[in-house]
């Protein structure tokens, strides 16, 4: 028996440790990592164990198993489970993290956030027993330890709040064979010894989780439901609408109510001087909107507020550029923002701004309280001052030569060439950006927030909030790393004019720094909404506060703003749930306003693609858990496959059957066992949807909706109501049951869709004449359209996106020159564009023109009869053929007008798995 290990291969660790513990006699040979040992493998794979029979083991875990088996230890289910988990779930993430930190040199905190879930899983399982499988060290412990050791060796601080994991990790690391294994592999160096090994590996893709084009693995497998599940689903179905809770209508101003679930939602305040791009929209306002709409559907008392952040240097600069006053700039752009969010149907209860009297009063009040409680410090800061312009220069008003690389157009905060951060006073040959004169260094007095003094209370509060609230993993890690690096006093004043004035003698010519000022905007915006704002903002006992933002905003919401509120000692409501997204990329790069790359909020409208499609796709690729990308071809794919062929097709068929076969009245339903099973299936998806949305897993919950319509399509396909309706009375009843159940599923979908696609939801409800009382979500699926319910006119919900249309959009937004003149002709005019005269929200969502569809249908029928007649008369073949061609062309045109794929329906055996 001979064990081969190679230098710098992380998998060697567990094997050496296991050999030390259970197989003392084994001969160990060290090789270079690319030496081939196992004869039947095409790639070199180490470690490997050569057995006395001549066979080889090449999986590190199997080698560890062999050692323990040889030492007479049997392995039970629990051991198997841990080892499988290590191989399939832990190892891919670990490789990705090691690769990101060691090879790509990414920041450790960010990469480590990826493995947080796995570490928590281990820790949870160690709370009741000292080792993974019981009271003694087993092979499972060694295997898991070996996997996480390279990560944790250097960064044991990670384990601070996972105490059981920390204890276990120390116990295993202290075992003598483990220590020896570490020494012989690491040789006193850090995990960087693995660099050469990792570089040779293909870049790991453990993160398939959210890659933008990721297809959900379709799994039509039999899900098993117990008899009770099925019976319960059938019972709630039969309750019907009258016994379901009713939606609650809220009246403004919405205020917290005693004994209710009171939810206050904010999305990060967009900075006023820019048009938001799709990444900004999905990161904060759209995500918060979905959650707010969902909360309202649950009858929770919900207030969603947002507004533009308007103070600061950037506004001043922009004003100067455009030759306006800062206030005029704010007014102009606030209107732009408002229009964009309106188009995206963001359901703010109130959309305000930060340049208001309330902002001044509240910010100054918090400031005074901090001052009285001695949480502010004074210090002098050296700053550049332009004597010509008579003012101190903010970082971005200075240019000069970089002190590091001598690049002569370095900015006051950062050099674009070498990327280093610069302190503006260190610039060589500084220049005022406005007048090009050289500024002088002057010292100026400033106020600082004494964060070190507030740290203790902050940590106490954080412990509690992190333990009880839903914080996304990235928010937790960013916050922890801030606290770990230690807090320093932060300057809260600036020598500017455009801001909230500082109400203190000696500082009256200064304003508050935006980061101190802007979050207070949440409070002042609420104050502009209602004079009873304190019921929301000074009521932590009754209010749950959700903050939505992209990850770059986390520290301000989790550390600095809470510190201010805690220091103010005024019973402020502080964030309970912090929901941060990762970044959305555009195609394969970044959104860039200056290069004209990417879709910005105001352009989305010009693409001709309805707002709901944008909402759907952005939510479908929401950067939840990790970065994702917007891709045009993926947008087209998702629209055509998920919306058109799956969701739209199901809702449309369900409605059409009622209309065509039952004269528009919902037929009688007699549920068989398989129908009840479908009820259970739908109920399970609904409950999953609720669970996910309660945890604000917005992207994942959307999959549940699509699953329901997928089940529905299969159900219709299997039961073939269009055939049954022509059969015996029994078969006709069957057709009725299937149609009735399907149309009720469509009604449920319209409610579940509301947070995601509000217009489409309304269109479905209008087509099916769904009563407004259904707009409440519970964990039950009720029959809301009973026998005899009359539905309205049904027409297709979605329009197919064509390849050339998408290609031209890609070209237009791809970063080439933005040619204003070509906007109109590039959006492909569909044969039947919706007429602009009627209600735009509704019209854009509905595809076909019912009149035209009807006309086409008649023509198809006519032509069909004609062909049949010719065939019946045994006419000449060439004549028949040409008439058949005409018929096919007509059918294709009809399909296009209906917004369907002209191909035969997609469900027929197209999907392989």
């Amino acid at each position, binding site marked *: 028996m001979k064990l081969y290990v190679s230098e710098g291969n992380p998998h060697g660790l567990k094997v050496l440790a296991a050999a030390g513990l259970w197989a003392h006699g084994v001969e160990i040979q060290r090789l270079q990592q690319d030496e081939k040992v196992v004869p*039947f493998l095409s790639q070199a794979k180490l470690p490997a164990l050569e057995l006395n029979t001549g066979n080889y083991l090449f999986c590190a*875990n199997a080698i560890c*198993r062999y050692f323990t088996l040889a030492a007479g230890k049997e392995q039970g289910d629990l051991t198997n*489970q841990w080892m499988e988990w290590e191989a*399939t779930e832990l190892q891919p993430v670990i490789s990705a993290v090691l690769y990101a930190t060691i090879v790509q040199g990414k920041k450790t905190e960010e990469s480590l956030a990826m493995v947080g879930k796995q570490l928590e899983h281990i820790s949870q399982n160690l709370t009741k027993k000292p080792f993974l499988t019981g009271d003694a060290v087993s092979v499972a412990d060694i295997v898991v330890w070996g996997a996480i050791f390279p990560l944790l060796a250097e960064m044991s601080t990670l384990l601070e709040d996972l105490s059981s994991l920390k204890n276990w990790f120390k116990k295993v690391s202290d075992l003598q064979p483990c220590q020896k294994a570490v020494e012989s592999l690491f040789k006193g160096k850090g995990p960087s010894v693995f660099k050469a090994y990792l570089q040779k590996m293909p870049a790991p*893709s453990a*993160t398939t*989780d959210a890659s933008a084009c990721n297809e959900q*693995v379709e*799994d039509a497998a039999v899900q098993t439901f117990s008899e009770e599940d099925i019976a319960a689903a059938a019972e709630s179905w039969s309750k019907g609408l009258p016994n379901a809770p009713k939606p609650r209508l809220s009246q403004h101003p919405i205020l917290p109510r005693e004994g209710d679930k009171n939810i206050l939602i904010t999305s990060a305040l967009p900075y006023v001087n820019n048009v938001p791009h799709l990444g900004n929209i999905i990161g904060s306002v759209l995500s918060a909107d979905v959650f707010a709409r969902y909360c309202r559907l649950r009858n929770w008392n919900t207030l969603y507020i947002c507004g533009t952040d308007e103070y600061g240097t950037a506004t001043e600069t922009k004003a100067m550029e455009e030759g306006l006053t800062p206030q005029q700039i704010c007014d102009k752009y606030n209107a732009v923002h408002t229009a964009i969010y309106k188009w995206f149907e963001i359901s703010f209860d109130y959309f305000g701004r930060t340049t208001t009297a309330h902002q001044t009063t509240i910010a100054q009040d918090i400031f005074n309280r901090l001052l009285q409680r001695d949480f502010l410090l004074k210090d002098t800061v050296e700053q550049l001052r332009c004597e010509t312009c008579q003012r101190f220069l903010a970082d971005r008003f200075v240019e000069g030569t970089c002190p590091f690389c001598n690049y002569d157009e370095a900015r006051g905060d950062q050099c674009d060439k070498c990327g280093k951060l610069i302190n503006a006073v260190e610039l060589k040959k500084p220049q005022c950006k406005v007048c090009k004169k050289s500024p002088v260094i002057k010292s100026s007095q400033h106020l600082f927030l004494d964060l070190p003094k507030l740290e203790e209370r902050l940590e106490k509060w954080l412990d509690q909030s992190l333990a009880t609230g839903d914080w996304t993993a990235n928010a937790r890690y960013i916050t922890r790393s801030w606290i770990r690096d230690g807090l320093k006093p932060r300057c809260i004043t600036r020598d500017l004019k455009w801001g909230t004035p500082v109400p203190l003698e000696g500082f009256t010519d200064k304003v508050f720094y935006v980061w101190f000022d802007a979050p207070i905007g949440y409070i002042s915006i609420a104050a502009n909404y209602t004079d009873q704002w304190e019921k929301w903002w000074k009521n932590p006992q009754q209010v749950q506060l959700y903050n939505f933002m992209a990850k770059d905003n986390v520290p301000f919401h989790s550390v600095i703003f809470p510190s201010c509120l805690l220091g103010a000692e005024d019973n402020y409501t502080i964030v309970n749930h912090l929901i941060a997204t990762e970044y959305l990329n555009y195609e394969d790069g970044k959104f860039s306003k200056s290069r004209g790359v990417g879709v910005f909020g105001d352009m989305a409208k010009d693409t001709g693609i309805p707002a709901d499609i944008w909402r759907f796709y952005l939510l479908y690729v929401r950067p939840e858990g990790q970065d994702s990308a917007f891709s045009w071809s993926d947008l087209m794919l998702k629209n055509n496959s998920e919306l058109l062929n799956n969701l739209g097709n199901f809702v449309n068929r369900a409605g059409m059957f009622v209309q065509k076969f039952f004269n528009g009245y919902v037929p009688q339903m007699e549920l068989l066992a398989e129908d009840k099973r479908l009820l259970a299936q739908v109920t399970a998806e609904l409950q999953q949807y609720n669970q996910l949305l309660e945890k604000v897993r917005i992207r994942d919950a959307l999959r549940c909706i699509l699953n329901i319509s997928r089940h529905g399509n299969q159900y219709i396909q299997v039961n073939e109501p269009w055939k049954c309706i022509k059969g015996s009375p029994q078969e006709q009843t069957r057709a009725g049951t299937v149609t009735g159940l399907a149309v009720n599923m469509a009604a449920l979908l319209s409610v579940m869709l509301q947070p995601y696609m509000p217009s489409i939801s309304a269109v479905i409800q209008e087509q099916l004449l769904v009563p407004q009382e259904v707009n409440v979500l519970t964990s039950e699926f009720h029959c809301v359209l009973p026998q005899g319910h009359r539905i309205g006119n049904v027409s297709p919900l979605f329009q197919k996106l064509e390849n050339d249309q998408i290609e031209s959009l890609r070209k237009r937004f791809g970063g080439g020159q933005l040619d204003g003149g070509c906007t109109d002709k590039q959006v492909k005019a569909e044969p039947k564009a919706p007429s602009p005269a009627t209600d735009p929200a509704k019209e854009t969502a509905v595809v076909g023109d019912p009149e035209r569809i009807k006309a086409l249908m008649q023509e198809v029928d006519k032509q069909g009869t004609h062909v049949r007649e010719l065939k019946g008369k045994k006419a000449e073949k060439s004549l028949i053929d040409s008439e058949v061609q005409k018929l096919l062309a007509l059918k294709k045109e009809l399909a296009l007008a209906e917004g369907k794929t002209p191909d035969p329906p997609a469900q027929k055996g197209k999907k392989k798995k």
Partner: protein
Amino acid sequence: MAVEELTALEKCLGLKAGKYSRRAQGSSQVPVLQTNSGPSLAGLATIASHLVTQAKKEELLGVSLEEKAVVQQWLEYRTTRIDRLTSKEDVRTTLKVSHENRQDLNCYLEDKVYMAGNKITLADILTYYGLHPIIADLSIQEKENYMNVSRWFSHIQHSPGVRQHLPSVVFIKNRIYSNVH
């Protein structure tokens, strides 16, 4: 998919159908079995090994120490390597990995009838289930390229009770592409 496969295995072992649920893990799903006796079990290989023990057919997990380790090794190969192919990654890497897998397996099986020892084991059964969608898609020429895998596959699919609901894959005994060795 995994649940379907475990149901097939239950039938193959003569067990009653268990109660399964699924947990999402990345883009794939991990099967979870609700056991009567203890806590639930997660993971394809873990549940499959458990079922074998339940059915009192421990010999399927290997008899000698070596066989036991080899069986578990191929189960891990199945869940980490073969399943990566079905979880739709980039098509190119899939093709590459898939080729490597078949190549490796083909070499490994050159002098073997079964994956571990001289009897059928769980490693054969689960590898067979895992490869089925891939092998079923191969052209006849490709099947000839992986001669040993084809021989083994054909053998396993005819072992009593293994195939269950899966369609039988056709192999041609006489070679039709003479240039392949």
